């Protein structure tokens, strides 16, 4: 047994592609080994910005001989009327290298086919691996591909070397004009020197000597440890939300050396968010904080290479930081010559979305939606007025130089400028919060107006884009619809504030039609609502609450805010005996009343005479107002408890009463009673769907 090592050496891959490409490559190698019955141990993946590496351990030298069953022609075409093999069957046997006498017939799905067993002899693993190697790079896909040489081969960046070793044997492999060998290259320092690798074990060692750490997890640990070593003695630390940047930096370097730079003085003149954006986005560097969470005048950065001459690198980075921050100061000073209001006037020079008009039109729609907030949200007139004012200014910063330069500062810059101009704090925070949450790890807006502004903005986007006829299927999300949908769902579910999304969507469609045109308005209300329901289902799926969600999904969207509390109450009631009975009864009620509407009240003269009927009616009519009362004050545990009180009378009813009585009047009375129960139980959840 020996190990298999594969390396694809490339020019610098985009950092955001590396992890996923490594995963894909491991999956494909594993699949191919299994496909060819090559015995193997663990398959590991490694990567750097310049290489994708797979190490498959304990590859057996050869595959075992095995017997397989092959399917031939249908019996009807395999044998003629006399029962002799036809040319078709003879051809099949020749192709498979078997004797026609060794075939047999098997029924498959009601039709007879000729089958044969054949023996596949042992095969050399190296031959089989060489056969699948050329497929590997082609199977790895990237969000953006390129071509660079005459065959037009597509990859994320040009492939410059291939290494394939099975033990000490170099496997033949050729892709895009590159031939495999047992050599690779180390870190780019000075003249490139090729490194000869004698075995998979040797590979990691030789690369480490050439200043390449192929294991991204190890690079991450090194960065964390070095950062700790620099920061701890000073009592400093990195911020809490540095994870995404660290992920990126790990894939920007082959050999990390962390250094601490001095933040230029000009940083003190800028808001922290601006300094952070400049450092993170333009320099892949980290802000540094003291134990109280205050920014200190340093930044942390990671060099690709050794610590030799790191002072030169540090000084270079400090001077770039200075230039970039000065640039930001310049932009902010330029921007602040005018009020935020002045930038609202320039939004007609910015396109919101192709076919959906300008940002000026979007602003008008948001103002319009804000002005009718009372129709879909529980807001005071004061909050509504604040929301309208915030909506008016919400997109203004998109026309500023600062946001044109640093797009991720949208919202942030508007709020900084408005606050500087003495704007009302409620509006300032709403402008900043409208884009939250930008990622699954980020919090939802803290203020109510911020949450509402964020939701109407996202609903407007969702409605508009679906209204262009865009079909959001597949894994791509070019317009950020998924993020918008997830943002809406998270904001409502986590704030637990009721928003009548169905009404809001209707208003959003009207707003789009008023400010321009929607190319595809057909069935739009339903499409947006369905899309949102999909995001809600996904939200609870990720929380592993799919089971209990299925008991709530029939409720209208306006109830989304109550889902977490309903789920909590159902979770607490999970052990109740009555709940199980109730689930069963709810199912029976639904089955028997299929097609009949739920009814919210019973006529006084309903023809019920048997004691079980009367007891049930009495219990139901007593329960209904209490349940409704509990729901208005969002006491779901109590509401469920009250429903459970109906478990016993319902069971007794089903035990003793024949619903489908011969007398039509009796039958319809009993059905009506059950329709009433269907109504009552359905107020809380669909018990029949409980896991």
């Amino acid at each position: 047994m020996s190990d298999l090592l594969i390396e694809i050496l490339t020019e610098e891959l985009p950092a955001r592609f590396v992890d996923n490409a490594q995963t894909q490559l491991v999956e494909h190698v594993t699949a191919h080994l299994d496909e060819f019955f090559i015995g193997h141990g663990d398959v590991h993946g490694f990567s750097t910005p310049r290489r994708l590496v797979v190490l498959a351990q304990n590859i057996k030298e050869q595959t075992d001989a095995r017997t397989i069953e092959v399917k031939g022609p249908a019996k009807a075409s395999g044998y003629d009327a006399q029962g002799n093999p036809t040319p078709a069957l003879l051809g099949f046997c020749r192709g498979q290298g078997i004797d026609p006498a060794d075939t047999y017939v098997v029924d498959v799905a009601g039709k007879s086919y000729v089958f044969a067993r054949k023996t596949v002899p042992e095969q050399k693993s190296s031959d089989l691996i060489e056969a699948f190697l050329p497929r590997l790079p082609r199977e790895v896909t990237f969000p953006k591909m390129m071509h660079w040489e005459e065959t037009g081969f597509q990859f994320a960046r040009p492939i410059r070397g291939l290494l394939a070793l099975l033990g000490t044997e170099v496997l033949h492999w050729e892709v895009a004009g590159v031939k495999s060998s047992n050599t690779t290259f180390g870190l780019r320092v000075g003249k490139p020197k090729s490194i000869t690798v004698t075995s998979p074990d040797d590979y990691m060692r030789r690369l480490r000597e050439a200043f390449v750490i192929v294991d991204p997890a190890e690079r991450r640990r090194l960065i964390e440890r070095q950062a700790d070593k620099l920061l701890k003695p000073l009592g400093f630390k990195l911020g809490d939300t540095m994870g995404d940047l660290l992920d990126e930096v790990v894939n920007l370097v082959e050999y990390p050396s962390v250094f601490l730079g001095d933040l230029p003085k000009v940083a003190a003149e800028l808001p922290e968010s601006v300094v952070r954006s400049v450092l993170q986005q333009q320099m892949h560097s980290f802000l540094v904080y003291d134990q109280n969470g205050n920014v200190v005048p340093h930044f942390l950065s990671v060099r690709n290479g050794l610590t030799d001459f790191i002072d030169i690198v540090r000084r270079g980075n400090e001077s770039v930081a200075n230039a970039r921050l000065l640039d930001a100061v310049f932009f902010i000073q330029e921007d602040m010559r005018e009020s935020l209001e002045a930038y609202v006037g320039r939004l007609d020079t910015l396109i919101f979305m192709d076919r959906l008009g300008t940002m000026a039109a979007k602003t008008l729609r948001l103002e319009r939606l804000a002005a009718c907030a009372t129709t879909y949200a529980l807001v005071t007139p004061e909050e509504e007025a604040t929301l309208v004012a915030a909506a008016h200014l919400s997109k203004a910063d998109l026309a500023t130089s600062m946001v044109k330069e640093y797009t991720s500062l949208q919202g942030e810059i508007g709020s900084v400028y408005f606050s500087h101009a003495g704007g009302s704090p409620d509006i300032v925070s709403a402008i900043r919060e409208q884009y939250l949450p930008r990622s699954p790890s980020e919090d939802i807006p803290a203020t109510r107006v911020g949450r509402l502004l964020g939701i109407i903005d996202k609903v407007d986007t969702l409605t508009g884009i679906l209204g262009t006829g865009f079909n959001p299927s597949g894994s791509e999300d070019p317009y950020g619809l998924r993020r918008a949908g997830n943002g809406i769902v998270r904001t409502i579910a986590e704030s637990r504030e009721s928003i009548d999304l169905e009404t809001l969507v209707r208003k959003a469609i009207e707003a789009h039609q008023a400010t321009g045109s929607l190319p595809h308005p057909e069935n739009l209300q339903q499409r947006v609502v369905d899309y949102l329901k999909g995001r809600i289902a996904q939200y609870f799926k990720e929380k592993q609450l799919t089971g209990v969600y299925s008991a709530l999904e029939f409720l209208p969207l306006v109830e989304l805010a109550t889902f977490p509390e309903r789920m909590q109450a159902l979770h607490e009631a999970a052990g109740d005996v009555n709940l199980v009975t109730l689930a069963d009864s709810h199912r029976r009620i639904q089955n028997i009343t299929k097609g009949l509407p739920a009814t919210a009240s019973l006529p006084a003269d309903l023809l019920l005479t048997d004691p079980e009927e009367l007891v049930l009616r009495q219990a139901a009519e007593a329960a209904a107002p209490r349940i409704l009362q509990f729901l208005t004050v969002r006491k779901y545990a109590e509401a469920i408890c009250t429903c459970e009180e109906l478990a016993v009378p319902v069971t007794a009813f089903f035990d003793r009463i024949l619903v489908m009585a011969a007398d039509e009047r009796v039958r319809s009375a009993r059905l009506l009673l059950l329709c009433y129960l269907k109504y009552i139980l359905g107020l809380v959840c669909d018990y029949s769907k409980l896991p």
Partner: protein
Amino acid sequence: MNFEEMVSKLEHFWESEGCTRLFPYDQEVGAGTLSPYTFLRVLGRKPWKTVYVQPSRRPADGRYGENPNRLYMHHQLQVIVKPPTTDIQDTYLRSFTLLGLKPAEHDIRFVEDNWETPVLGAAGVGWEVWLDGMEVTQFTYFQQAGGQEVPVVAVEITYGLERLAMFVQKKKNVYELEWHDGVTYGDLRQQVERENSIYSFEQADVEALVTMFDLCEKESQRMIDKKLITPAYEYLLKCSHTFNILDARGTVGVSQRMAYLARVRRLAYGCANLYLENENHE
């Protein structure tokens, strides 16, 4: 090392790598890519290697000669290698040593940056190259030009000469760069920057420029119809620069902007098609 010395070292380096050394194209362009030495020559299958300096005008980036980093006109050193050699990145890195920069003493990174010039229907995949954090070069593999996939890929290496010189001379303000011993960048360029900024932000006659655009467009199209690529392309460049001034003047609305870009693009496609037609005849 002063500015002119740096430029000539880089030019000679690429010359020794087999590139034809050319002079700047004698028209206003927004970037070295717009020079016909790049845009037309990356089309088709013919090999092409060149190096040239191209002064590049971006009216909207003008800062009245007051900003230490931003300029109405900056200088690019443009290198085209078509088809690219397999060690093109290493060759590029070697060019740094001529400037007294030893790669082992710095942090040189290739950071993903894909580039496109919609007016030319051109797009490429590549990186910006960081030297100790400073972006000094755009390194691109052409994928499309004139709206079509290129049959033979060209590498375009665009050095930002001011940025690089600021790094080499350790200057924080572009106007303090030594162009020639005793002659600063400011001596040569600051007044020009100021005047051109005033012109494009405040003084440009919008009506006249709109007329000029129309006239140049017409003339370009007329030459396309006559199958005369060079004059057709030269009038396209005039359109492009005229539009850039209009854009800086802040009078172009969104839909208008898109319409202007589409008009230039139509001419670019026309020129590209003529060029390819020509190559196929040869």
